[in-house]
């Protein structure tokens, strides 16, 4: 009875497709990135004003926006890094969004996903942006360096007839920073459409670990970016949700994980899970509590999960190697918001329980989650 509730506080219908929603740090504003019917990109800034949303600013650009982040921006200068459908990465100042601060043709295809770090965190390395694209490349950018990425993790060029070249390259759908607990260490996790999960170590410039899921990876997030990596949540097509324990890497078995196969299906208010195995589009950890996270699914439902640690996180296997032990997933709450997938979700970093999410029904919603302080 004292379970958290996911309550839709505000709802704003839009005349364009929403691709990403992000809170502006230290404000009651959020940004909507989307694509108009004519293919133009649009960025709207809304502000919460009691019981209604006020549009503060609207910027339209030639190319549709796909994703954006404030991760590399400081609190004072609100620079949003945005990836668009033509592979261009630009950094816009929210005060003067017409002229980009930084602009680079980062990829040959659409930038599917973006993550950034180093803006507000202290003692955790340089501000960097990582982008993943349909061209299969994962690139790390530092806007202080010119037009070249600081790290480029492209797949090797494919041999072949050139006609089916695109099929040879994997499509990168999700990237996430993590393990940035000091100035040197940094890890990028990348998920691909074929279910490949790669963990790149930026300090040693090597692949730390790779694994293959059963389905293409849609969403990735470390529970915290700026601590030694603890948990990695992965969501896939066909309703998969996996949480890896990232503390212990076994030499052969790698990281152990817990899997939930029904995360994409809709949950009725009476707790009955029904419907097809839908894609889990997004996973977001609660900024105030790293063991709580929310997933947005293909059926338009969202679910709040709690990760319960096992009694012992590490055991010794028969060879004397350390093996991580995954915990258990406990679904706290579920809500169906839309008939269309909820594919973007953002917790407000400063206000517990406040979130904004976008769905493919051309609307954004501001959510209030209660009783989160009880966990």
């Amino acid at each position: 009875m004292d379970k958290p509730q996911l309550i839709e506080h505000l709802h704003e219908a839009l005349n364009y497709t929403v691709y990403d929603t992000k809170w502006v740090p230290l404000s009651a504003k959020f940004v909507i990135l989307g694509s108009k019917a004519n293919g133009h990109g649009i960025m709207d800034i809304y502000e919460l004003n009691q019981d209604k949303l006020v549009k503060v600013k609207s910027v339209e650009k030639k190319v549709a926006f796909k994703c954006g982040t404030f991760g590399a921006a400081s609190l004072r200068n609100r620079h949003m890094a945005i990836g668009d459908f033509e592979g261009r990465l630009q950094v816009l100042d929210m005060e003067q969004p017409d002229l980009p601060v930084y602009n680079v043709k980062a990829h040959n295809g659409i930038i599917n996903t973006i993550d950034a770090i180093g803006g507000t965190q202290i003692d955790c390395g340089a501000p960097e942006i990582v982008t993943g694209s349909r061209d299969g490349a994962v690139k790390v950018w530092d806007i202080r360096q010119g037009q070249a990425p600081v790290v480029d993790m492209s797949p090797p060029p494919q041999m072949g007839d050139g006609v089916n070249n695109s099929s040879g390259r994997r499509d990168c759908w999700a990237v996430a920073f993590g393990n940035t607990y000091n100035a040197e260490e940094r890890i990028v996790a990348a998920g691909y459409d074929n279910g490949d999960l790669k963990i790149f170590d930026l300090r040693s410039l090597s692949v730390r670990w790779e694994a293959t899921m059963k389905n293409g990876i849609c969403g990735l997030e470390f529970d915290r970016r700026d601590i030694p990596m603890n948990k990695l949540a992965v969501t896939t097509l066909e309703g998969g949700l996996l949480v890896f324990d990232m503390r212990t890497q076994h030499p052969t078995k790698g990281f152990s994980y817990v899997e939930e196969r029904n995360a994409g299906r809709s949950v009725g208010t009476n707790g009955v899970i029904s419907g097809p195995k839908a894609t889990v589009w997004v996973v977001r950890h609660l900024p105030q509590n790293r063991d709580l996270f929310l997933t947005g699914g293909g059926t338009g439902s969202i679910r709040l999960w709690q990760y319960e640690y096992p009694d012992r996180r590490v055991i010794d296997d028969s060879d004397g190697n350390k093996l991580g032990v995954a915990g258990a997933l406990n679904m706290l709450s579920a809500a169906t918001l839309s008939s269309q997938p909820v594919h973007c979700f953002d917790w407000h970093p400063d206000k517990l329980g406040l979130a904004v999410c976008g769905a493919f029904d051309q609307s954004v919603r501001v959510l209030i989650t209660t009783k989160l302080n009880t966990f």
Partner: protein
Amino acid sequence: MSAQEKAFELQRQVRQNAREYENSVKDLYSWEQDIKNKEKELQKSPLSAANKDLPVRSHVQTDKSRKESASSSAASSPTEKQDLPVDPVAQQYKKANDIKDRGNTYVKQGEYEKAIVAYSTAIAVYPHDPIYHINRALCYLKQESFDQCVEDCEAAIALDKLCVKAYYRRMQANESLGNNMEALKDCTTVLAIEPKNIEAKRSLARINDRLRKIATKSGPNFTPDRPGMIEILPIEKPAYKRSKKAMRSVPVVDVVSPRATIDDSNQLRISDEDIDKIFNSNCGIIEEVKKTNPKPTPMPDTSGPPKAETIAKTSKEVKPTKQTAVKVAPAVETPKETETRKDTKIVPESDNEAKPSAPKKTAVEVPKVQTQVSPPKTTIERSPEVNTVQTEKIEQASSNNAMSPSPIERFLPPAPTSTAQFHVTWKELSGPQKYQYLKSIEVPNLCKILGAGFDSDTFADLLRTIHDFFVPNKEPNTAAVLLEISKNDEFTILAMLMSAEEKKMVSSILNAIKNWPSKNPAVLDNLFKEYGVA
């Protein structure tokens, strides 16, 4: 739990949720106010410089690689833009590298002169890096100043013994200079340092090819195998069986003319006059022999035949010795040096024997021709029967010679018995001799002796002889000779083709004869008519 209780519980729950939501929203609104105020304050605050001091990731890497390159070899270090090093030597090196970079751009543009200047400056600034020398060598190579290229390569090698490029460029320069052996050495050095260098391999094949070609053409390395030669092969002995005696160094003597022995037999077959013709441009064997012999006059005898015999004898004596010399050479299986030494020993002997005969040779030569005895020189190599053509050749040779012997030393040949003999002899003779010679021929035979070979030159000669000698001496048979000449079959044509000078000569002869006391007017008239002179 009853249904009523359940319903109540649900109601309570909903009410509680609503209250909670209400509280949350109230909380949210207050938070909204707070955050908006905070935001406004933030806007007013100065722009905080973002994490400025943290290095860009890729820059961190370049720092690392810079450290690595500094520790690696100086020659291969990249000369990209870097902070000036503190070390003065390093500063010099950097300056030199900058100058070198300038030179490199000149090379790319093909301006080798400027590039050479740049590299020279770089060497002056920092003389310890072979790269400047190598690059300048390339420029010299392109400019085809190969000697300077070689010098630079040697300088580079002095700085770095394993400088492959220096060896390779020196090889190229040496190849262009034609020093194939030097080039070969450099090429093998390159391959020793870099066994997989394909270019060097190709060059090696090319140089080897060229060397082989030269060697087969006229190389000093290869002489055809002589028959009966014993090849001494090296013997493989185990270490314990090997001689304990120290190795003795055998002095190796260079043979100046190793091919002389091979040509020796051929030399015998080549006649002296042929040699004379080919090598001395017909300046005459006779004169040459005279020079070697200081006393040619003691034997001015004219009695030919016996002398010729003695010469033949001496030459025959000489011949065997020479033959033995020739025989000895191949028979003795000794190293080449001794062989040649033997030859040189033998040859002077035969020379000594031959020398005394030389003056006799010259003395007898002319009479011998007259008497149809083969000339003594030829007896050495040829059969005694010498055909006339050969003698003709000899005579021609001596007549053509400007330094031909004075008439005193020449002996008048006997009167010719045949046309050929006359013509051959005639051309050899000097003016007074021709007079004597012509006089010795019986007048009635003259027509016959002149024969069909009678040509305008001989005719002019005859006229001149008559004009110069017969007329002053008032020879009685002058008219007869002229008449006899006119009887020749060729005469009519020759008379018609007489030059003005010849006609003048004829008329002066005839006018002179006219004044002589013993004259036959009929014959004279006839002559005037025949010679077409009025």
